[in-house]
């Protein structure tokens, strides 16, 4: 009953071993569709936070540092020691800022070896033209005007007010 193995083993003895050469040379390429080390492109990110919501192991952290000029420095950190490589973040990323590469060699000693992070600066919105007090005053003025106009005639919207509101946004 062991004779088939016997023949095979003798055949093996005189044939080339199937062992990969790996640690000697480059690591072999992973199969297509392999979900390896995550790649994050901060340039595409719009800081929507969707990836954090869908991440089951909570491997994604976001750090927001306000800068002097009102800009925000936003850092997304993807912890590879916490990742389950499910690709949910990538799928949900509307801007395709997250992709999973086929780099599976995620080996290291320090914690930093396992972090994939990207930083981008979110520019602050342009400064509003008016301060809130002015706006308040303007609103009041507008209201007064409106009341006056209503009294005078039927209400029509003021184009300049709309523009102001848009700017504030």
């Amino acid at each position, binding site marked *: 009953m062991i004779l088939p193995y016997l023949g095979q083993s003798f055949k093996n003895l005189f044939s080339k071993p199937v*062992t990969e050469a*790996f640690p000697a040379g480059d*690591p072999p390429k992973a199969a297509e569709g392999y979900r390896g080390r995550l790649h994050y492109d901060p340039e595409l990110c719009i800081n929507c936070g969707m990836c954090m919501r869908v991440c089951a192991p909570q491997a994604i952290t976001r750090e927001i540092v306000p800068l002097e000029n009102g800009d925000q420095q936003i850092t997304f950190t993807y912890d590879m020691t*916490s990742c389950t*490589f499910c690709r949910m973040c990538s799928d949900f990323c509307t801007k395709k800022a997250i992709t999973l590469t086929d780099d*599976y*060699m995620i080996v*290291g000693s320090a914690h930093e070896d*396992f972090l994939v992070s990207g930083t981008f600066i979110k520019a602050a919105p342009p400064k509003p033209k008016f301060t809130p007090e002015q706006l308040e005053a303007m609103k009041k003025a507008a209201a007064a005007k409106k009341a006056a106009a209503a009294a005078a005639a039927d209400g029509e919207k003021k184009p300049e007010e709309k523009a102001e509101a848009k700017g504030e946004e």
Partner: protein
Amino acid sequence: MLQNMIDSSMKKSPWIFHINAGSCNGCDIELVSVLTPRYDAERYGFKLCGSPRQADIVVVSGPVTMQSRERLRRTLAQVPEPFCVVSLGSCPRSGNVFKGSYAIDGPLEKYVHVDVSVAGCTPKPEAIIAGLAQAAQLLEEKRKEARK
């Protein structure tokens, strides 16, 4: 000279002891596959051994569950010096998807200094080999350091 020979053979014959600290079995299977003909870690002297007393590299997989915590700690205590600890997969390092569970008392760093981590869920055998090789290298350094 003998001591130098011992130092250099430290990295040439690292014996592995594998602790499953509540792993889902994925990493465990991959660790065994490292010894299959295709990956054949034995050519670097790696060998799975059955007792922590003989181990040079302790491979831990799984988030440290409450059940396995005491066992893990006791087993780690029984490994003779010098030895390396390798965490296998994402779980020991962070808890992975089990993070925050009432049944988890991780991470592994809480109990022992992890020398090398191999991340991935599960890591590919090549990555495991690379990690183990790195740990083997560390063994020699540790022994040299100990001698000084």
